[in-house]
């Protein structure tokens, strides 16, 4: 009874049943009414005719006609009595016992004799008073009609029961079908909840609402899996790559204390510890930022002019480049390069890329940036002519804490490029790495903001 499907079926059944009953009832009422009207009209017409006869030929003439008509085999019934109630003519046994209504109509039963068989049949007649105290009854046998009505009524009752019965069965059946599908989904969910995250909710490809629900659930589960992996990665990273500096920090403190240190030694140890703690914190924060971005945190989607952002970043790093005798240049923009995104994050990503390029490009090298329109996209490119990255490693460089062997001595926390990737992911942008012949070329391909959006 708790099934929604069943209740819906029941409700529909109710509406359908009531309207069917209403319609059928109306049909019945009209047809029964019609036949009744017909009978009454026939009787009234006959009465008219007999009245004419009476006027022309008086009572004897009337009696004659009634006798004639009574002898005919028909549905019509007649009875003519004088003022004392003596039978003059007619084809029924006696005057009906029931009373006439206001319009002189009587419904009654009469005895019909066919050979040995006698039966009670239903009749309807009209009672007429004739001057002289004579009374005439003109009517018709309506047994057929009564039988028909009863037949229709019983048919309706049977139909009604049939509708209800079939409806209930149908409802139960549909309900159970739906229940089975929902049970399957619930069972799958329970399986997933108990820890088996790879499991998915079954769907049968019919495309109906339940199916779509199943597909949405599965998409959600896919998403959750991605998020959980991100979390797992972060905790793995924290475990692996933060433990080292923390142990170093701890070791320094411990060893310094053990050596019964001078004030100067203490000061030095504390200063180094502070430095190390700051570095750790910045790594930790960067990890959190990256995880948050990879987890799909959505930020502002305002129009951002890539050229402006590039100019700002270059402004910041220009002296660093100059000191290292590296040429840092911005190539002229091509087309419209406004995208929708988070200005702060895009700045940070570009800064990280520039920082990286400057770090690894030797003196008298060159680092260049460019933003250009390409159809519906805006491509941001940064290239250098440093040592570049071997083809095999190019995918790896965006992973967390990856340092190619030759670079382990450089400063930084190894997360700069990971953040770039996370920012690209968050913006739905493509990240490409190519050989610079020589050097490295990194491109971020974003969707341009349409002209309307820029307004």
């Amino acid at each position: 009874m708790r099934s929604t499907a069943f209740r819906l079926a029941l409700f529909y059944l109710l509406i359908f049943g009531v309207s069917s009953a209403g319609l059928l009832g109306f049909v019945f009422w009209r047809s029964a009414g019609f036949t009744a009207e017909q009978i009454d009209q026939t009787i009234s017409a006959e009465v008219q005719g007999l009245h004419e006869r009476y006027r022309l030929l008086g009572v004897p003439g009337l009696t004659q006609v009634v006798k004639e008509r009574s002898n005919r085999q028909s549905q019509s019934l007649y009875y003519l009595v004088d003022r004392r109630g003596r039978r003059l003519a007619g084809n029924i046994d006696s005057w009906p016992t029931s009373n006439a209504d206001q319009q002189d109509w009587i419904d009654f039963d009469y005895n019909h004799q066919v050979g040995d068989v006698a039966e009670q049949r239903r009749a309807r007649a009209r009672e007429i008073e004739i001057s002289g105290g004579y009374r005439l009854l003109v009517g018709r046998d309506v047994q057929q009609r009564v039988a028909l009505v009863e037949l229709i009524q019983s048919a309706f009752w049977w139909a009604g029961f049939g509708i209800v019965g079939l409806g209930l069965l149908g409802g139960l059946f549909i309900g159970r079908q739906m229940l089975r599908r929902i049970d399957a989904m619930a069972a799958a969910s329970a399986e997933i909840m108990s820890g088996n995250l790879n499991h998915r909710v079954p769907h049968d490809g019919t495309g109906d609402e339940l199916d779509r629900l199943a597909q949405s659930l599965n998409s959600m589960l896919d998403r959750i899996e991605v998020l959980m992996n991100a979390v797992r990665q972060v905790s793995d990273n924290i475990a692996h790559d933060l433990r080292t500096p923390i142990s170093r920090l701890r070791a320094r403190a411990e060893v310094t204390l053990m050596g019964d240190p001078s004030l100067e030694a203490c000061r030095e140890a504390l200063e180094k510890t502070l430095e190390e703690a700051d570095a750790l914190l910045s790594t930790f924060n960067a990890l959190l930022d990256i995880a948050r971005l990879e987890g799909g945190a959505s930020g502002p989607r305002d129009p951002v002019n890539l050229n402006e952002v590039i100019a700002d970043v270059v402004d910041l790093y220009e002296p660093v480049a100059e000191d290292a005798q590296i040429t840092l240049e911005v190539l002229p923009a091509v087309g419209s390069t406004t995208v929708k995104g988070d200005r702060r994050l895009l700045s940070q990503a570009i800064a990280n890329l520039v920082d990286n390029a400057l770090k690894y490009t030797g003196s008298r090298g060159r680092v260049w940036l460019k933003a250009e329109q390409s159809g519906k996209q805006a491509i941001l490119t940064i290239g250098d002519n440093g040592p570049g990255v071997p083809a095999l490693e190019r995918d790896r460089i965006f992973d967390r804490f990856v340092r190619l062997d030759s670079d382990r001595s450089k400063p930084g926390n190894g997360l700069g490029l990971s953040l770039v990737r996370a920012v690209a992911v968050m913006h739905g942008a493509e990240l490409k790495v190519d050989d610079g012949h020589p050097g490295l070329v990194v491109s971020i391909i974003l969707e341009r903001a349409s002209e309307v959006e820029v307004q």
Partner: protein
Amino acid sequence: MRILVIEDDKEAASYMVKGLSEHGHVADHVHDAESGLVMAESGYDVIVLDRMLPGMDGLQAAQNLRGNGFTTPILFLSALGEVDDRVTGLKAGGDDYLVKPFAFSELLARLEALARRRGEEPQTEILVGDLEINLLSRRVTRGGQRIELQPREFKLLEFLARHSDRVVTRTMLLENVWEYNFDPQTNVIDVHVSRLRSKIDKGFQLPLLHTVRGAGYRLSEKG
């Protein structure tokens, strides 16, 4: 300077108070917002307000203070460091926002910057020793000699000058001169500052642009 610290972490608070006292300030400490609101009545130069407090939270407290007509500068402290959190804090009436954990020197520099902001009229000219900075014409001269600065260099100098005699941290410079809220791994700021220094100090007797070890920079006549 009289500083009110509203912070429920007792240890963190005691370090702050200790540090502030060692730098010659008077610091009072309360554990919750309600006491803070009461204490604020005695008049402070700046209030340090933790966002997460038992009972009434920091944002609410700031709104109350502003609602009651207090114009004391408020520095928010928070473990919540998202840009949105910053904006929320500043909208609630805060004047600055520091994410925990922070370097004490950072706190100190920002508090001093906030406290002095009161009653500062917009100036057309700033003088530091014999260095003249005209904010309208954007001309910089030292000892009568014209110094050519690029726009960014001028902005940097202006900020240092507006906070003359006080420590300005690298983060403050990043946030205000370049409007960046992230931490660049390399010492970009240092390079910009040494560039500026070479322009305004080289060839002059008295160095004005000093590096304060472990904290930042200071533009000042005194050392």
